[in-house]
């Protein structure tokens, strides 16, 4: 069991990489597929991206672009968890076009951490990074829930920030209802 207790902490950590890569649009796709018994997670951004050489070593914990400490653990942790649960891990990236991180896990694997507090993760991404838009799609079998913060920004305009208490409560409620409506394992 790695240092993260649920998968939504992994997702938040990978999303932070996109923030540092000064992305403006973030895609998060989750698919809980009981038929194929597979849970797939994809996080794509339009950030700086990486060159081929960097891409080759990115899964090495000692490789990081940050200056504040000598290790980059986010990606290796997700890779370890995915492969520990009979799944796969893959990163594709190109300079200037952004990066996409894909992980799959066996849905019913006994060691698979739960999705956990997905609502909290999405809120932190949305509210904590006003300059980034998030398109979130979550499928459970044949039911889907989509959230696109661009719709919110259109209505709110530049004057009202997403961390305004009433807006925050609205977003939390929307995510909660969405997750419950598709019957996701994640906590509403």
């Amino acid at each position, binding site marked *: *069991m790695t240092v993260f*207790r649920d998968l939504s902490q992994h997702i938040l950590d990978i999303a932070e990489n996109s923030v540092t890569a000064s992305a403006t649009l973030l895609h998060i796709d989750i698919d809980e597929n009981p038929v194929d018994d597979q849970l797939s997670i994809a996080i794509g951004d339009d950030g700086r991206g990486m060159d081929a050489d960097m891409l080759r070593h990115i899964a090495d914990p000692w490789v990081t672009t940050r200056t504040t400490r000598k290790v980059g653990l986010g990606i290796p942790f997700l890779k370890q968890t995915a492969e520990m649960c009979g799944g796969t891990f893959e990163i594709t990236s190109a300079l200037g076009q952004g990066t996409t991180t894909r992980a799959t896990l066996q849905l019913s694997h006994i*060691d*698979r*951490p*739960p999705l*956990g507090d997905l609502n909290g993760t999405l809120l932190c991404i949305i509210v904590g990074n006003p300059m980034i838009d998030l398109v979130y799609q979550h499928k459970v079998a044949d039911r889907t829930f989509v959230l696109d913060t661009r719709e919110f920004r259109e209505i709110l305009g530049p004057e009202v920030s997403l961390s305004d208490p009433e807006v925050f409560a609205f977003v939390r409620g929307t995510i909660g209802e969405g997750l419950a409506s598709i019957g996701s394992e994640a*906590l509403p």
Partner: protein
Amino acid sequence: MEDVLATTDGIIDVHGADQEALVEILREVNEVSGHLSREQMQRIASRLSLPLSKVYSVASFYSLISLEPLGKHVVRFCQDAPCHVVGGQQVWEALEHELGIPFGATSLDGEWSLLTTSCIGACAVGPVMMVDSDIHGNLDPQKVREIIARYRGEERSGGIV
């Protein structure tokens, strides 16, 4: 299925959804619904942010927590030395004979589960067994037949015999 998970959620709320309460939660869920199903374990794992393997490893460690459904009546015969010394063996055989199932099994009609328990502290009146939560002491093959009949009788006439 929904209400089983609802009761599980209720118990988690009482004890708090953190890892320290795992043993208490598992014991109480097992007590309320007779056994611990995979769905209930997954719900507990999800609420406590734990992988299913951790919940399964703790649940399978403790003997009072059953991972399979048990019979309507659960007989737990004390298999420890003090009861053994005063004739536990004959009572053991009488139970298997009377219920028609070996120890550790549940009858096909789901009526009876015949399990063992370690010492329940009633050695002064050994051999001892528990049927559901009632304790019966000073057992011998004859008394076993009477007690089982009473519980069976209870079924047919629906009242206390």
